[in-house]
């Protein structure tokens, strides 16, 4: 009887610590992590990554994101997300259940440096190879391609055998091919190079370049001529593809710069075209549109996603009204006197700048970009389109089409064109030319305001925003021809593309200078621009 009891006790004493030991590895190592110095953290991260436990990737990801905190009092580890009021929403990494929220100053964040981030990303990638989400698996394979070693080959082979997603499988084959290129088997190497032909991943190109590299004395490093030739061919196909995509990318940059120029210049084209008024305050009207966006974002901080949609009509109204006020109070008395108009509107631009400085502040204001406009669309490894520029390009074209429709299809547009072509005759036909002038100026200024909304997403919003765009706007209008919207479109896009194609060759500063020189020379031959106004009434 006693022996049975002793035996049971022994059994219990052996099994109980065993049960506790099941939790021990992760809890033990996490405990150590809280006490580890920055220099010893990499080693501790490796230990953690080796533990086979579904909670490990969560902890590692939190460490990478800067969300792992140690309580100052007892050094217990928590995953925390900061709340608005200085508190932390806590989660116990061992139990994966939300604990509590607590004040932030009771905790110290465990910081990591760049080296450790690299290590963490790789460790997480290795674990993510087994993830359920194909996107995560794809990202994991891409990450591991940076760090190819024989044990990665084993890992990839394992994954390949059970991989169902085609995209991921393709990437795994590319990674395997890269590893095989380091081996000695000739046939396998040739097959691998064949697989890699036309692949745009940068590490593929680099690896192939290493094969065709030449020694100091000009002899190729790769001794086998067949492999050398095949690698050369593969590289040539990759190079031509890369060149094509780089051309497309530069064209996209040029189009997006062109769309910015179009937006800023089209308002000026209308006022300059219809009324012949040189409006030096046009840049400030753009700036007012940008500040309207800032104010709208202040008024709706919880709905930033929609702030731009509200800001567009608001900016149109604000800048439009300011434009009409300027026209009624100053410009209408100066018709037919371009020099005085220029000086007067220059003065107005200074007044507007100083007003904004006094009302807001001389410093820049920060305008946030909504989530749906951040990031880029990665079409392939060498070609990405940033969302903000894409949306602005589309937006510029939409505005252009709307204006075109307004001018061609509406009564107001008809009256604008009539007054622009022959003011006296239009008045004889019963058109109130003064009212049309005010509306034209209002429309041009309103469009400038809309341009300001777009620009607020691309550049700093400050009192000097207008000064950066006034010269470009005049440049586009003068080059494109006055009074013709199509001229403005062609001129804006061609100047944008020209600038962007020259930039890699000459640098940003020199590219701008060359574009200006070109315009000066062009104007010598065609003083009225690309699409001058036709007709006897046009001077």
């Amino acid at each position: 009887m006693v022996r049975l009891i002793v035996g049971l006790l022994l059994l219990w004493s052996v099994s109980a610590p065993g049960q506790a030991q099941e939790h021990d590895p992760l809890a033990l190592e996490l405990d150590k992590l809280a006490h580890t110095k920055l220099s010893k953290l990499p080693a501790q991260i490796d230990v953690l990554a080796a533990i086979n436990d579904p909670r490990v990737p969560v902890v590692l990801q939190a460490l990478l994101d800067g969300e792992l905190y140690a309580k100052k009092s007892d050094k217990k580890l928590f995953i925390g997300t900061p709340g608005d009021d200085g508190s932390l929403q806590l989660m116990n990494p061992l139990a994966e259940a939300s604990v509590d929220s607590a004040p932030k100053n009771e905790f110290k964040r465990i910081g990591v440096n760049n080296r450790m981030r690299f290590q963490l990303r790789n460790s997480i990638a290795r674990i993510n190879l087994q993830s359920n989400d194909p996107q995560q698996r794809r990202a994991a394979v891409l990450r591991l391609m940076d760090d190819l070693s024989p044990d990665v080959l084993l890992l990839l082979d394992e994954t390949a055998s059970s991989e169902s997603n085609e995209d991921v499988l393709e990437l795994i084959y590319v990674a395997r091919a890269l590893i095989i290129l380091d081996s000695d088997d000739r046939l396998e190497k040739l097959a691998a190079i064949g697989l890699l032909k036309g692949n745009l991943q940068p590490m593929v190109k680099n690896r192939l370049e290493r094969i065709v590299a030449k020694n100091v004395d000009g002899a190729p490093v790769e001794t086998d001529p067949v492999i050398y030739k095949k690698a050369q061919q593969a590289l040539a196909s990759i190079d031509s593809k890369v060149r094509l995509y780089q051309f497309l990318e530069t064209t996209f940059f040029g189009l997006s710069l062109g769309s910015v120029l179009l937006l800023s210049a089209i308002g000026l084209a209308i006022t300059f075209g219809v009324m012949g008024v040189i409006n030096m305050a046009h840049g400030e009207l753009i700036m007012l549109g940008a500040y309207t966006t800032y104010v709208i974002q202040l008024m709706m901080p919880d709905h930033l996603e929609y702030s731009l949609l509200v800001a567009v009509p608001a900016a149109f109204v604000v800048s439009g009204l300011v434009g009409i006020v300027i026209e009624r109070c100053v410009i209408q008395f100066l018709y037919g006197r371009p020099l005085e108009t220029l000086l007067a509107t220059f003065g107005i631009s200074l007044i507007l700048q100083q007003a904004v400085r006094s009302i807001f502040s001389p410093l820049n204001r920060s305008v946030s970009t909504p989530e749906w406009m951040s990031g880029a669309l990665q079409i392939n490894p060498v070609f990405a389109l940033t969302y903000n520029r894409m949306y602005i390009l589309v937006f510029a074209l939409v505005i252009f089409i709307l204006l075109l429709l307004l001018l061609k299809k509406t009564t107001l547009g008809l009256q604008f064109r009539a007054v622009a072509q022959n003011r006296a005759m239009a008045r004889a036909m019963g058109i109130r030319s003064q009212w049309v002038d005010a509306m034209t100026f209002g429309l041009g200024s309103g469009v400038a305001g809309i341009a300001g909304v777009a620009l607020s997403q691309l550049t700093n919003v400050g009192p000097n925003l207008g000064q950066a765009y006034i010269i470009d706007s005049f440049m586009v209008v003068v080059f494109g021809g006055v009074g013709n919207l199509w001229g403005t479109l062609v001129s804006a896009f061609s100047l944008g593309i020209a600038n962007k194609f020259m930039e890699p060759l000459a640098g940003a500063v020199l590219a701008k200078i060359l574009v200006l020189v070109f315009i000066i020379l062009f104007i010598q031959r065609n003083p009225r621009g690309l699409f001058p106004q036709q007709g006897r009434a046009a001077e």
Partner: protein
Amino acid sequence: MRISRNFKGVTAGVTLAFSSVLGATAAWAEETIKIGVLHSLSGTMAISETTLKDTVLMMVEEQNAAGGLLGKKLEAVVVDPASNWPLFAEKARELIAKEKVDVIFGCWTSVSRKSVLPVIEELNGLMFYPVQYEGEESSKNVFYTGAAPNQQAIPAVDYLMEELEVERWVLAGTDYVYPRTTNKILEAYLKSKGVADEDIMINYTPFGHSDWQSIVSEVKTFGSKGKKAAVVSTINGDANIPFYKELGNQGVSAVDIPVVAFSVGEEELSGMDTSALVGHLAAWNYFQSVESDENDAFIAQWKKHTGDDKRVTNDPMEATYIGFKMWVEAVKKAGTTDTDAVEQAMIGISLPNLTGGMAVMNKNHHLSKPVLIGEIQEDGQFLVVSETEGTVPGDAWSDFLPGSMDVIADWTTPTSCGNYNTVTKKCSGQVF
């Protein structure tokens, strides 16, 4: 009759009393020491310089509360040169010749300092320049409390080379004297360390540049050649914001291609969304996150003075703080605010800096400072990832440029020269 005589008497008495009071207040009003503040409060550099104006005002307030200087109150005279370089020179002349200030705390960009230099030397004024710069200068009338290249640029490159094993370098800067000279020095330094020509890419953009698409794309391509690449950024002013935004949009993370900036600190980051910037670096001699008693006291004082808990401190503020305190010490030592006397008294002055060490003013008018490399964190603060053991004395003339290797600055007698060639033993005078 009697009334009018009395009336006249009373009026005369009152007028006399009044004018004597006025005269006394006027006389008392002249008993202040004027301090000029020459920082851009508008324009492209306002993002960086406005906070330095506030720092000087805070130090003036503190000194006045402690009884002033030489028995007189300090008075700050603030002007706004509006990021307009020629206007800096005009305002400097206005401060010294018209307002009769005894010292100027000012300038940020090297082009503004170069504009002001001839004016200061002509009128024998005194200026404290608190910002990191490119070196190649030492003036009798200027004290450089910011970092010289050997206290910022060179250690940063060393850190990238040794700790992060960087082999390809993009040197991106704004197009003016500071980035151009710093990049000359860095290029010479990198080549001396064996970096090949095709592994260095140099790029300049104008102030306020906002279209970074092509340049970031080029940086991406440059960095995808298999060797680790990094960007050494001398971009100044608000052009930094669209630059970092574009890096974030095009997916360039700090782990792939780290950017180490020399002109981006807590102040420039405070206005932006830093989530895309985490992991990028900056090299300074001070960070707000450094833990020391002096720093805690300074930060508390700053938050109280501005009344805003969210205001941050940065390296040029520490340099302004050190410069101001040293100037006060020198004036007390010399017993006067006269430029020549104060200038001689400044050399050798040492007082605690805000990172737990001592700042010493050397005879080339540069400080000895510790070098810190910090990584940007989510909240816009920096995590110190590397620091020098002690302080590094500033070297006005770079050891890596052929024309400057043999030149030193030494303002003590008998040399008393800013560009003294130790080989030819000649003083070549100020190069404007």
